[in-house]
């Protein structure tokens, strides 16, 4: 038991070190090596944050979806814990995506915010998962809170395909994808050095995400253990 816990800690430490290294290389590549964009200039470097952070948020909400569905099906606490942990980190990355987008929007569109379909749907996504976290803290009965949150977690995930398709379905200020396009392969459309910066930055975000998720999940496990031990002893 103790040995397994130490091994998990060691693995988490390695993951943290890898994340730190990838983030540092990604930052250097994004800010110093990748060339400025032909139209937008240096301000386009915000893309190396913007795209990885929203993709990380999507991954997080996918885990909320999976954890929530499994919890409603099997009623196992670990699935609920995964969904709860992923939702918390997903909210962080969604909020950061909106902030980065706003900072990028000011010099390129001339406004900090506009009620564009993609922006509005992303703001709704953030509100749904902030609601998810609030629901968990407001409802006293833990099982009821977990079930209600699981339903919201599943419904909230349906917003992601809408966000992705919004630039095709509506006339929006937000540009359609430059990299993941159905008509072109990425390296035909984007400078290889820009693609490399994006790939390293994304790898850094992913490693960091799994590091944060493992910490947050373990925190949840410890809280559950504390509750169970207190209940067992009547303390």
């Amino acid at each position, binding site marked *: 038991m103790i040995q397994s816990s130490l091994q998990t800690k060691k693995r988490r430490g390695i993951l943290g070190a890898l994340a730190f290294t990838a983030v540092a290389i990604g930052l250097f590549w994004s800010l110093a090596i990748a060339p400025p964009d032909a139209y937008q200039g240096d301000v386009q470097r915000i893309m190396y*944050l913007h795209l990885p952070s929203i993709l990380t948020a999507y991954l997080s909400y996918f885990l909320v979806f999976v954890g929530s569905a499994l919890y409603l099906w099997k009623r196992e606490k670990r699935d609920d814990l995964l969904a709860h942990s992923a939702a918390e980190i997903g909210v962080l990355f969604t909020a950061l995506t909106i902030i980065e987008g706003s900072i990028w929007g000011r010099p390129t569109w001339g406004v900090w915010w506009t009620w564009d379909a993609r922006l509005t749907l992303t703001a709704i996504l953030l509100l749904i998962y902030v609601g998810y976290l609030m629901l968990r803290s407001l409802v006293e009965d833990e099982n009821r809170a977990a079930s209600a949150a699981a339903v919201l977690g599943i419904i909230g995930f349906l917003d992601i395909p809408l966000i992705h398709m919004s630039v095709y379905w509506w006339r929006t200020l937000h540009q359609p994808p430059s990299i993941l396009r159905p008509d072109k392969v990425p390296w035909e459309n984007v400078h290889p050095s820009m693609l490399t910066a994006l790939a390293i930055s994304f790898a850094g975000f992913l490693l960091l995400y799994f590091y*944060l998720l493992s910490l947050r999940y373990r925190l949840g496990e410890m809280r559950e253990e504390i509750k169970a*031990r207190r209940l067992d002893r009547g303390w």
Partner: protein
Amino acid sequence: MEAWGFVSLAYGIVWGAILVYLILLKRRYMNAAAELDTLKSKEAASDAKK
């Protein structure tokens, strides 16, 4: 504001926020770990008395 001003602002906010979240998460983690350890030693002491 120049282009690099916007870039610095975005990078500063993002990495600052992630760092703050990491520090707060670590603090919550350490507090829970300490509470669990205390609880375990309290249990052990209570069992030893019996």
